[in-house]
């Protein structure tokens, strides 16, 4: 607003605010964190992007051939494969486009070829970068290979790397792949609508009603965040699969497909939506409600004119966070997607199944587009957001209302049952000896050292990763959010920074992991040394979960009036003192939420780290993936529950610790 007014003023002599020490510190800090994001996000993504436009084609001019007569004598005529192709028309230009694993037979160049003939053939690369195979032996030098006709049959030309949009062309012309775009968007939109609606009313019940057991419900709502996204899939199989306990509720429909993905997605995105909406609803100005009451506005009208506009920013943030979580998640559709193809699983199939990194990169680029749209919408909404908590605000306190409180209690119970139910099923599955034929209980499924995928060692590695991520990540992210919110001026820099901070949400973990391989495993990269260490896992995890934490921090910081900074400046207090004495304490709930969010996500993350772990740093979450992948579903559920209990314990410790801290730092809330 201020900026807009300033534009209307006539141009006077340029008055430039002096850059004080504070501004310099803040800008310096921003540059450091921006640099961090550049190295851990932008550069690897650039490596990925350049992979997507690297195409492979057969350069027929790079191969030279000679043919002998029937007695095996060569007359010295050398022809390139290109000349032969022109003469015979064996391959069309479209045939010459390939993937990195493309191969092209050579016998088609000789229409009268017979593998029994005594004719001999010579072939060589005309240039140093030409490559061909005889059988499976690679020849990449320029020496002649002389072969009999039977061996010549086994010659395969290899493509060379070029640059262009060929991969995208072939992506969009492959119906199987193209279809996934629609599938992904439909799934993400439905899951978003369902999740945000459910989460809003849940958050509303907890923040604006006087129903009972709020603390308990808050804990339950956070539970899905404590488990890998594959776990609801596993639970749904046990509930609604062909041998499921509640199979009849499906009325013949299959849980493997869109239905399963949506239910599972609602489960695992629920806390993400809840945390953001709840932060937005938590702080509100009671004066607005007093005004509404004084004006005799109906409850309904008050809701639409006061509550919703106040929570708008949170709602929209939540919507696009959920949308992106669903569209980029690969664990859940992999477990329960059946034949319903989605983009994230396509990446997996391209990269893992076919080792086609280029096409994997292309699908990733396609996946990034919705996220950039979401980012644009977010910016548009954000620019209209007004600070809700000013220095003069009065915190809102709900009044008891028996009927409404009961209704919300019942609603919260339904949500709670859904969440606890799915987890309970997993716990049950983990304890059953052999579902569904031997229902006796045993701890056999917890003998991880005997299963594929990592064993108990990986469990302890996960805890280490989670602790490191929580401590380092919270410091980096909150400080970054503070700088981007509260620095004066420097608008381009801030906008750029904000954009970087939004990007990780859009990047499927698997793409980030692959991008890291391409970037960090390059021997020319001075940061090569961190490859294969715990450090790269921490960096990757912090980056992967940057966005939600950043948004949580920004949402909290937004509630703080900028007047605090002005007051501090007029009192000649250094910004860093304000940061430590006011900002951090006021935002402490958000800071603590971020740290626990990072901890639990580091425990549950799968896709980003699947390419980055080394023998010394295997992880529990990857063990879940691998065990489920191998069909060891019960042990996968068991390891998933170990992650759950660890995260639950961490949350309890966190709660106890934070209660003490909050009692002191949040005294201002309790009037």
């Amino acid at each position, binding site marked *: 607003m201020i900026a807009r007014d300033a534009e209307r003023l006539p141009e006077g002599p340029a008055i430039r605010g002096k850059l004080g020490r504070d501004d310099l510190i803040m800008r310096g800090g921003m540059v450091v964190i921006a640099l961090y994001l550049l190295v851990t996000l932008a550069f690897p993504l650039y490596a990925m992007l350049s992979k997507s436009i690297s195409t492979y084609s057969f350069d027929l001019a790079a191969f030279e051939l000679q043919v002998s007569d029937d007695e095996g004598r060569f007359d010295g005529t050398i022809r390139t494969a290109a000349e032969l192709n022109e003469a015979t028309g064996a391959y069309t230009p479209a045939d010459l486009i*390939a*993937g990195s*694993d*493309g*191969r092209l037979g050579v016998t088609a160049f000789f229409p009268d070829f017979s593998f029994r003939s005594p004719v001999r053939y010579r072939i060589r690369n005309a240039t140093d970068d030409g490559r061909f*195979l005889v059988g*499976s032996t*690679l020849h990449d030098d320029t020496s002649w290979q002389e072969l009999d006709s039977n061996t010549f049959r086994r010659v*395969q030309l*290899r493509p060379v790397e070029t640059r262009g949009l060929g991969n995208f062309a072939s992506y969009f012309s492959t*119906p*199987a792949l193209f*279809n*996934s775009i629609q599938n992904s968007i439909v799934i993400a939109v439905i899951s978003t609508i369902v999740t945000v609606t459910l989460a809003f009313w849940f958050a509303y019940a907890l923040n604006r009603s006087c129903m009972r057991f709020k603390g308990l419900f808050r804990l339950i709502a956070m539970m899905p965040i404590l488990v890998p996204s594959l776990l609801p899939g596993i639970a749904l*199989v046990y509930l609604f*699969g*062909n*041998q499921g306990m509640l199979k009849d509720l499906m009325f013949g429909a*299959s849980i*493997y497909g869109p239905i399963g993905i949506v239910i599972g997605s609602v489960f695992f995105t629920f806390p993400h939506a809840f945390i953001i909406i709840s932060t937005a609803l938590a702080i509100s100005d009671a004066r607005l409600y007093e005004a509404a009451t004084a004006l005799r506005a109906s409850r309904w009208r008050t809701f639409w004119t006061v509550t919703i506009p106040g929570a708008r920013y949170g709602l929209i943030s939540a919507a696009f966070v959920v949308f992106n979580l669903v569209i980029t998640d690969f664990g859940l559709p*992999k477990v329960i997607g*059946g*034949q*319903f*193809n989605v983009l994230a699983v396509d990446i*997996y*199939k391209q990269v*893992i*199944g*076919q*080792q086609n*990194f280029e096409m994997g990169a292309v699908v990733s680029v396609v996946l990034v587009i919705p996220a950039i749209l979401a980012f644009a919408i977010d910016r548009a909404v954000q620019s209209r957001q007004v600070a809700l908590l000013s220095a003069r605000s009065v915190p809102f306190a709900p009044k008891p209302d028996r009927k409404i409180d009961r209704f919300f209690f019942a609603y919260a119970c339904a949500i709670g049952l859904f969440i606890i139910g799915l987890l309970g099923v997993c716990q049950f599955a983990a304890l059953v*000896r*052999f*579902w*569904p*034929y031997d229902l006796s209980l045993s701890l056999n499924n917890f003998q991880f*050292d005997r*299963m*594929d*995928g*990592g064993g108990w060692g990986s469990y302890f590695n996960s805890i280490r990763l989670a602790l490191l991520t929580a401590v380092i990540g919270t410091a980096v992210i909150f400080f970054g959010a503070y700088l981007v919110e509260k620095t004066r001026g420097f608008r381009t820099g801030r906008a750029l920074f904000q954009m970087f901070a939004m990007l990780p949400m859009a990047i499927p973990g698997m793409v980030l992991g*692959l991008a890291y*391989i391409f970037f960090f*495993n*390059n*021997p020319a990269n001075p940061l*090569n040394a961190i*490859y*294969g260490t715990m450090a790269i896992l921490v960096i990757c995890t912090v980056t992967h979960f940057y966005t939600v934490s950043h948004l949580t921090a920004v949402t909290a910081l937004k509630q703080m009036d900028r007047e605090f900074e002005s007051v501090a400046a007029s009192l000649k207090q250094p910004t860093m003192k304000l940061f430590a004495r006011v900002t951090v304490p006021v935002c402490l709930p958000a800071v603590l939420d971020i740290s626990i969010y990072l901890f639990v996500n580091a425990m549950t993350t799968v896709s980003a780290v*699947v*390419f980055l772990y*080394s*023998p*010394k740093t295997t992880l529990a979450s990857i063990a879940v993936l*691998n065990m489920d*992948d*191998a*069909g060891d*579903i019960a042990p996968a559920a068991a390891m998933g529950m170990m992650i759950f209990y660890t995260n639950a314990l961490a949350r309890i410790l966190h709660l106890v610790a934070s209660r003490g801290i909050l009692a002191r730092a949040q005294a201002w809330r309790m009037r």
Partner: protein
Amino acid sequence: MLSKLKLTVALTAGLVFGSAAAAQTELTVYTAVEAEDLARYAETFEAANPDIKINWVRDSTGIITAKLLAERDNPQADVIWGLAGTSLLLLKSEGMLEPYAPAGVEALDPRFVDDSTPPSWTGMDAYVAAVCFNTVEGEKLGLSLPSSWQDLTDPMYSGHIIMPNPNSSGTGFLDVSSWLQIFGEDGGWEYMDKLHENIARYTHSGSKPCKMAAAGEIPIGISFAFRGAKSKAAGAPLEIIVPTEGVGWEMEATAIVAGTANLEAAQKLVDFSVTKEANEMYNTGYAVVAYPGIAKPVEHFPEGLLEAMIDNDFEYAANNRAAILKEWQARYDGKSEAK
């Protein structure tokens, strides 16, 4: 603090034991072998070679292969011990393997040794395709026991068969490439067209169909025999069927990664991997091993499996892989809402 302590201990130990501790070489070994076998492999080898220590990187075949290809310019692995033969052929065709003839390689079945001289890889054991049939669920649904691949196209089985997707599973590719070899190129695709009508869905892993069958989720799983035997041993009501037309198979093999800094230790490991002792170790989980004459029968393994193994053309599979997968995807993967 702890690491400081460890360091002190290590330094002291180094001073006391001198050269012995200093000479220990660590080998990074990439593998797709089942986790429960790994500890045994490492123990047996390290007992024979106390100066070498193995660090495993274990993952599924697809991931290990992708990882190796991605690390092409800066390989992290020294040795690959237990990866699919077609994957090793792929790596060989990228020039990523160090040719080496391990001591005693002559003793192996030549089908299990790369035909270049010196060979780029040597085989260990084979896993063989088979069909897992859940007798309890089969009876409930009134399904008769199939005996051949062609039987599986009977409309009776509609929606009751599950198989791995060749685009993400090595076992799935093994099935597809073997059908193309058994029935011929055209006949193979014709067969898969009909089979597709009966498939409930395609999984991402090769062992999953059999485990799904074991759990009664889908009564028939196209998978591999070893997995079926294991599930049966765990108490699953399974019948393991060897289709009469013959079955595809894939070997697991060993190779040295070109450019390793620990060539000598890597060679020792590969030497060990072809010994009779090592092959006896493979035999615990696999009925077919590279060393002739030592294979003892594995519990619950179906009869006649070895005779049913087709004369597999690995080179055909590796060189036509991209084209086969593309065709498969166009035919079957596009039908997302098929069932």
